[in-house]
């Protein structure tokens, strides 16, 4: 080589960095729309956590059932004259928070169980599989009613119930995917290099699972949001005074004719969040597909 000293790049930087989110600009337009919506929701959630809006809880009966944009109210008011805008915002930590926590619980348990099943000898694999089948077969509504009856309404009981009812679905997907990855040549090549199986699991199988996990997280989050609303609507979700979107829907039921905005506002919020997460999930899935095609 030449005598000139080309300063070599610092070696450590050559090691792979953990990239959790796909690189910016990698998605199509709709994915970006989804990401923007989710980002807005996230910022708003943090905002109401820091500055809880009193307007969401105190209302003036004289100002009840205002239509959107009537007399300075943005989205209208409910039967107690509380601002629907503030209520739907104050519901974010409940609805989105529970959905997020439940999705994290489901994905963590599901990934752990799926990898355990894929990586273990026959007996343990069968135990996990039977456990998964049992939990899936168990009616989750009954589970939810039982947990709420035992622990009372609240953020954590609901998040835990939803997570515990959903993890087997994640476990099945992760198991199937991990099985197919474990048969790939590069896993064999790592074995041939003497790499231990736990290390292979973490350094070869888990990274290959990343797109699957991301997509599944987005869809699970959307499912959890709907499930939270449904349970709250039925009155077995969050405390009745909490302005969760499901509770708001539940309250609006009686005034559907007089004040349809009372139903439409939380419903729109739910639809918006669910669509946003589905857009992201679709985008990541499409990206992962095109990338794996490019690699092969």
């Amino acid at each position, binding site marked *: 080589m030449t005598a000139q000293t080309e300063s*070599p*790049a610092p*070696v*450590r*930087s*050559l*090691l*792979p960095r953990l990239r959790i989110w796909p690189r910016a600009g990698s998605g199509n337009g709709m994915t970006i729309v989804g990401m923007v919506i989710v980002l807005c929701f996230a910022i708003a959630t943090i905002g109401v956590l820091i500055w809880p809006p009193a307007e969401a809880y105190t209302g003036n009966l004289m100002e009840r059932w205002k239509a959107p944009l009537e007399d300075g109210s943005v989205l209208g008011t409910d039967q107690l004259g509380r601002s629907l805008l503030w209520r739907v915002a104050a519901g974010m930590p409940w609805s989105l928070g529970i959905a997020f926590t439940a999705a994290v619980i489901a994905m963590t348990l599901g990934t752990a169980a799926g990898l355990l099943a894929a990586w273990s000898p026959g007996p343990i694999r069968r135990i996990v599989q039977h456990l998964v089948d049992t939990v899936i077969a168990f009616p989750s509504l009954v589970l939810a009613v039982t947990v709420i009856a035992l622990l009372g309404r609240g953020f954590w009981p609901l998040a835990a119930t939803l997570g515990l009812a959903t993890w087997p679905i994640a476990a099945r997907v992760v198991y199937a995917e991990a099985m197919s990855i474990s048969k*790939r*040549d*590069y896993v*064999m*090549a*790592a*074995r*041939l*290099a*003497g*790499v*231990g199986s736990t*290390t292979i699991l973490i*350094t*070869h199988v888990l*990274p*290959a699972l*990343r797109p699957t996990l991301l997509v599944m997280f987005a869809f699970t989050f959307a499912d959890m949001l709907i499930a939270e609303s449904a349970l709250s609507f039925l009155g077995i979700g969050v405390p009745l005074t909490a302005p969760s979107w499901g509770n708001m829907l539940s309250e609006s039921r009686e005034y559907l004719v007089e004040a349809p905005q009372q139903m439409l506002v939380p419903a729109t919020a739910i639809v918006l969040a669910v669509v946003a997460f589905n857009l992201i999930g679709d985008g990541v899935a499409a990206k992962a597909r095109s990338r*794996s095609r*490019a*690699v*092969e």
Partner: protein
Amino acid sequence: MADTALLQIEDLKIGFPARDGGEVTIVDGVSLSVNHGEIVGLVGESGSGKSMLALASMGLVPRPGRITAGSVKLLGEETVGLPDRRMQDLRGGTIGMVFQDPMTGLNPVRTIGSLLSESVRRHQRVSRDRALEIAEAALTSVGIPAAHERLSVYPHQLSGGLRQRAMIALALVNDPAVIIADEPTTALDTTIQAQILDLLRAKLVAAGGILITHDLGVAAEICDRLAVIYHGRLVETGPTADLLAAPRHPYTEGLLRAIPRFDRHRPRLVPIPGQPPAPSMDRGACSFRPRCDYAMDACAKAPALTPDGAGRSVACWAPIGAPVLERRA
């Protein structure tokens, strides 16, 4: 040969459970040794058990298969029945294997440097930076230009030839005493094949190695000794030049006749009639009997691999060129 071979396989049998509850023998009583600086070619058709033999040497017979009998000694240490942990130390450290397909053998989401340094750090107690230096040296030694920059490159950014070189570097990064190369050139263009073979010859001679191939041309080019495997058994072994010049087993002869050659005129290629035997086929008779031009009554019993005292062995009742009068009976 030498007292302790680098790799000594003795009377190895590998079986898989059969559907009827019995066991199908995939490799049946193979003995093979590799000495220092020696390249042994293992030649056979698809399904003949050559790759299984290689995996057995690495202690990685895929489940539910298992080694049912025999021994594999690596530098004198018995590896059959060795605990997993110890075998992992040997694998990639003392014995390295170059994998068949460079297109799928490298993890697409890992950089070359991270794959190599993973193996280095598994076998040597060195820092991350030192491991990457060793990885870079390994890449340079297999003829990859700009090795330092290539450490941070993903496999898909390399050409097929470079990928195979990277795979070889991965197998060699810890300077193993024995190297097994399983069809290392099958997936490559002919021009790249020649380069990779040159590289492999240099690397295998420096240690000791087995080259697995179904291509006798490749085997002829770099192997010192050849072992021909058929239906999980060795049918002929011997020094490469002798064996190819005067094959003694009808199967070896058949393989040679089926190779196109340009250096002498041959009217047409002669294929071996029939099909390779299924692994489950009965082993009582000579496995090659149904396809053999010279089959005779004695072939109803399987012949043993018999040494001739001059470094060659053949498993045939009537080896070609042997003074047996009734051979074409």
